[in-house]
């Protein structure tokens, strides 16, 4: 599969009066056509900022300080604003965690989706309307003609997220950045939306960068997974490989933190990672996971490990990796 997106040493920092927040601090990964890459990490690890950086939508005081983002052979960081607009929404689209804040509350959802249809395809209002209704059908909105006239607040969270998907699909994107699209939804609705995403991806041949903090979703829906910790990717591996033989102690800690449904054992303790994530304004000098790491060596406090190939296609940034 040809590589569609390549991110190399991306650094996005926020320059606040309290100090520089290194939200994304040297992230590299690639994404092939038709692939789903899961980007997992805890709150504040830089997942959203990574996605926003790809679209060059980082809000001030944030700035992309360094790195290369190559999409279909073009360096996105070198594009002019008008070239960039041709890519945004057209070839790369994004859906957000909270669809309510991404939708305009005073316009009907139909007119909002219609607007993005007409932005990306040269069609008349009437054709656009038909296309919108088609999109609504595609994302599984029941009675689309009626929902066309609904306002965002009249829809449930699940329906709003489907509207967001319809809007994202209007430009027939090659790459979908999905930023926790199901986090705000109930499990049964989440399962429906995830199922829908899988089908859309297969039928339209899209690549998906799927951002989530739920390893369960990754296990069920991603091809490869990148584990993010405090602005860095600490491990990158095919899904099965990651769960079977995690190399980074943080990955293993995350996997072990999830209560297993079928373990049954009552007085079993969850193997929790101690401590909390470091302050991004004030990172430890060595490996940023060292203060919480059960396998830390004295060396880890001084040196930050480079990404190393553990096995073909399996990278980890750790001096003392597991399962080698």
């Amino acid at each position, binding site marked *: 599969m040809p590589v569609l997106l390549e991110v190399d040493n991306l650094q996005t920092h926020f320059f606040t009066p309290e100090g520089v927040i290194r939200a994304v601090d040297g992230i590299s990964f690639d994404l092939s056509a038709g692939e789903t890459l899961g980007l997992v990490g805890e709150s504040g690890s830089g997942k959203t900022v990574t996605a926003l950086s790809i679209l060059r939508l980082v809000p001030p005081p944030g700035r992309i300080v360094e790195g290369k983002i190559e999409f279909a052979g073009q360096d996105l960081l070198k594009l002019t604003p008008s070239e960039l607009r041709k890519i945004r929404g057209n070839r790369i689209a994004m859906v957000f965690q909270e669809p309510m804040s991404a939708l305009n509350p005073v316009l009907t959802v139909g007119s909002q989706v219609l607007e993005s249809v007409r932005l990306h395809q040269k069609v008349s209002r009437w054709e656009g309307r038909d296309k919108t209704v088609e999109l609504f059908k595609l994302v599984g909105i029941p009675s689309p003609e009626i929902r066309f006239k609904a306002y965002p607040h009249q829809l449930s969270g699940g329906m709003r997220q489907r509207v967001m998907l319809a809007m994202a699909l209007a430009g027939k994107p090659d790459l979908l950045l999905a930023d926790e699209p199901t986090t705000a939804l109930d*499990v*049964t609705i989440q399962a*429906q939306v995830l*199922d829908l995403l899988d089908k859309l991806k297969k039928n339209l041949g899209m690549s998906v960068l799927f951002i989530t903090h739920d390893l369960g979703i990754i296990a069920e829906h991603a091809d490869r997974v990148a584990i993010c910790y405090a602005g860095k990717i600490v491990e990158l591996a095919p899904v099965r490989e990651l769960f*079977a033989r995690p190399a980074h102690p943080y990955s293993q800690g995350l996997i072990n*933190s999830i209560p297993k449904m079928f373990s049954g054992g009552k007085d079993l303790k969850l193997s*929790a990672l101690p401590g909390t994530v470091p302050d991004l304004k004030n990172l430890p000098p060595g490996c940023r996971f060292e203060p919480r790491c059960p396998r830390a060596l004295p060396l880890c406090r001084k040196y930050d490990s480079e990404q190393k190939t553990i096995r073909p296609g399996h990278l980890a940034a750790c001096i003392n990796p597991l399962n080698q």
Partner: protein
Amino acid sequence: MEHSSNNLLDVLNLKKYFPVQTTFFSGSRDLVHAVDGVSFGIQPGETLGLVGESGCGKSTLARLILRLIEPDSGEIRFAREDFLGKRGEELRRLRRKIQIVFQDPQSSLNPRMKAGEIIGEPIKIHSLAPSRAARKEMVLDLFRQVGLPPDSYSRYPHEFSGGQRQRIGIARALALNPELIVADEPVSSLDVSIQAQILNLFSDLKTRKNLTYLFISHDLRVLSWISDRIAVMYLGEIVEIASTPELVKKPLHPYTQALFAAVPIPDPSTRREKILVPGEPPSPIRPPSGCRFHPRCPYAFAPCKSTPPPLKPVENNRLVACYLY
């Protein structure tokens, strides 16, 4: 009603409807059937898990049990005493034995009080400490129990991380030495690695202090780890109660089955074809007739649409409200 009571808590046919104004002009009052005839019991030392989707009435039930809101009808018995009949001093005495931990540690801590004051407040209210110094000693001891550093005493809630704030919330609940703790989604807003720490804390405290929990969550993975029994709630009603191993092994109610099917399992080697239920939960203002799940149920047949199925026992002490059993 006759009830076998060595239970610590008994809830009998509890109902709470909230009036809401639906149409702006007519001013007609509709009712949200938030909790609609709920009954269950919890034995001393047991953890009963309560699972259900957003808006099904979990928090309302929790607030009813603490008498933070008053039910429209039904009974609550705590240690065989009629809790709802209590007033004044008697109510305060009984209240000490039931405490609550909230979902959002941010909004459940008074931002203008220091951690020490927050945890010391219940002790002060009930005059449990003979002196100010003794109270501080008790608070410091609670800090130790929940794993907070002693220098937390004079820090404000915003100076703590999410996990630490939840520890403050737990310490406050423990301050009165309660017998029952109602935990309303206490780990839902936390990151997985922190969630595991807090779950371990709940489990530790339970054994150390011989506590009884009503543990509310929408995450079956969490509940199946922490609970002895699980009650499944849908649109204000309990549709199934069973011991955790049995429920996990063989969910009986079609809604319970749907919940289990929807839980993402962090094990890619067991990727399975999922049977998903269609549609969304209907409005609790006009819940469907008959079985409230029938519009989404793949097995629904004629009687499901007309008469609500009663919650009745099937094999080994399980209760299910479904005509299939």
